[in-house]
C-alpha cells in the first residue's frame, strides 16, 4: 500500500474522482482482487486508500475498527457481516460489528470459551468453516450459525504483539460457496490494518500512562522540595538534613513521605 503514502498528509480525496491516483492504485492491487470484485475497480481502490488513512488518523480505536469492518463487508466477495474480536486480559469481546447477526454469533463463542473467532485470535491463524452444514471442528457453533442463515465463515487472527490479540470475523450467507482465496487474501489485508490500528492504540495508551506517571512524580517532587525549604528555614538545616527529617518521620509514622511534606506545607500556609 506504499502507493497511498502520498495521501497521509491530511488531504481527503475520498469521493473525488482522481484518475491519476486511481490508475496508480490499480497497478498495485493484485489483479485477481480487482477482477473478482465485480464492483467498479475505483471503489476497491478508494476502500484501500481509506483503510490506509483511517489507520493513521488519531481516532478512537473502536471507531477505526468499525470503519474497517464496514469496508470489509463492502469489499470482500461474499461477506454479509463482519465483526472484530478483541481479547484483552483474557476477556473476549466484539469491539466492532456490521450487524446483529455477527455479534450474536461472536458472543455465543465468548460464552462457550472457544470457537473459530477466539481460536483465530489466540493463535493468529486463519480459521475457515467452508460449510456450516457440515463442520466437524466446530459443530455447535456451526449449528447456531446455520440456524441464522450463515453458510460459511472466515476468521483471521491479527498479527499483534503479546497482550491484546484479536481477530477479524467474516460471515457469509450466500449460496455461492465458501470464501475463496481472493476473499482470504483481502481479509488478511484487512486484518493487517486492524492490527496496526490496535498497535497504534496500545502505543498511544502506553504513552499517556507514562506522561501521567511523570506528572504525578513531578507534583510529588515539588511538594517535597517546598517542605524541605520550610524545614531548612525553621530548623536552620541543610537540604539533605531536611530530607532526613522527612524520611525519619515517614518511617516512624508509616506515612508516605510526600504526605508528610504536604502536611508541613499546609501547616506553614495555615
Amino acid at each position: 500500500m506504499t502507493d497511498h503514502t502520498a495521501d497521509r498528509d491530511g488531504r481527503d480525496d475520498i469521493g473525488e474522482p482522481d484518475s491519476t491516483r486511481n490508475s496508480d492504485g490499480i497497478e498495485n492491487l493484485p489483479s485477481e482482487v480487482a477482477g473478482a470484485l465485480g464492483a467498479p475497480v475505483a471503489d476497491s481502490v478508494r476502500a484501500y486508500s481509506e483503510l490506509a488513512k483511517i489507520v493513521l488518523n488519531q481516532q478512537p480505536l473502536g471507531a477505526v475498527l468499525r470503519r474497517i469492518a464496514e469496508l470489509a463487508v463492502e469489499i470482500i466477495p461474499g461477506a454479509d457481516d463482519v465483526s472484530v474480536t478483541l481479547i484483552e486480559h483474557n476477556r473476549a469481546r466484539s469491539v466492532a460489528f456490521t450487524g446483529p447477526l455477527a455479534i450474536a454469533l461472536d458472543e455465543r463463542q465468548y460464552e462457550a470459551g472457544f470457537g473459530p473467532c477466539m481460536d483465530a485470535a489466540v493463535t493468529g491463524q486463519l480459521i475457515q468453516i467452508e460449510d456450516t452444514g457440515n463442520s466437524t471442528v466446530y459443530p455447535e457453533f456451526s449449528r447456531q450459525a446455520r440456524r441464522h442463515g450463515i453458510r460459511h465463515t472466515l476468521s483471521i487472527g491479527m498479527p499483534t504483539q503479546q497482550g491484546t490479540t484479536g481477530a477479524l470475523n467474516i460471515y457469509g450467507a450466500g449460496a455461492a460457496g465458501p470464501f475463496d482465496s481472493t476473499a482470504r487474501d483481502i481479509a488478511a489485508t484487512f486484518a493487517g490494518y486492524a492490527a496496526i490500528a490496535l498497535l497504534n492504540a496500545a502505543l498511544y495508551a502506553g504513552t499517556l500512562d507514562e506522561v501521567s506517571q511523570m506528572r504525578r512524580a513531578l507534583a510529588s517532587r515539588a511538594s517535597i522540595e517546598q517542605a524541605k525549604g520550610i524545614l531548612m528555614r525553621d530548623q536552620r538545616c541543610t537540604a539533605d538534613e531536611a530530607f532526613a527529617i522527612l524520611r525519619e518521620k515517614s518511617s516512624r509514622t508509616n506515612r508516605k513521605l510526600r504526605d508528610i511534606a504536604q502536611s508541613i506545607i499546609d501547616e506553614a500556609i495555615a
Partner: protein
Amino acid sequence: MRTVNAGALLAAGLAMTDLGVSDLWLRYFALGGAYPRQQLQAYLAGADAWSAHEHDVAAHALNEYFADQGMDHPVSYSDDL
C-alpha cells in the same frame, strides 16, 4: 560517600519486588532524587558511588513500596551502614 556495597544492598531489596529499575527510578525521582535512570542502574550494579543522601532517597523509595505491601522497611539507610 557511600561505597559501592550500598548499591548492592539496594539491588538485593529491588530483587525482592516486582519492580523494575525504571519503576524504582520513577519513585526515587518522585521523592526528589537527583540522578538519571542510567546512574541508578550503575549504582545498583556496583559501578557507581553515591552520596549518603541519594542512597537514602532511593532506599526510602523502595521502603515505601515495601510498606505498601504491609512489610517493614527492610532496606538500610546510610546511617545504618
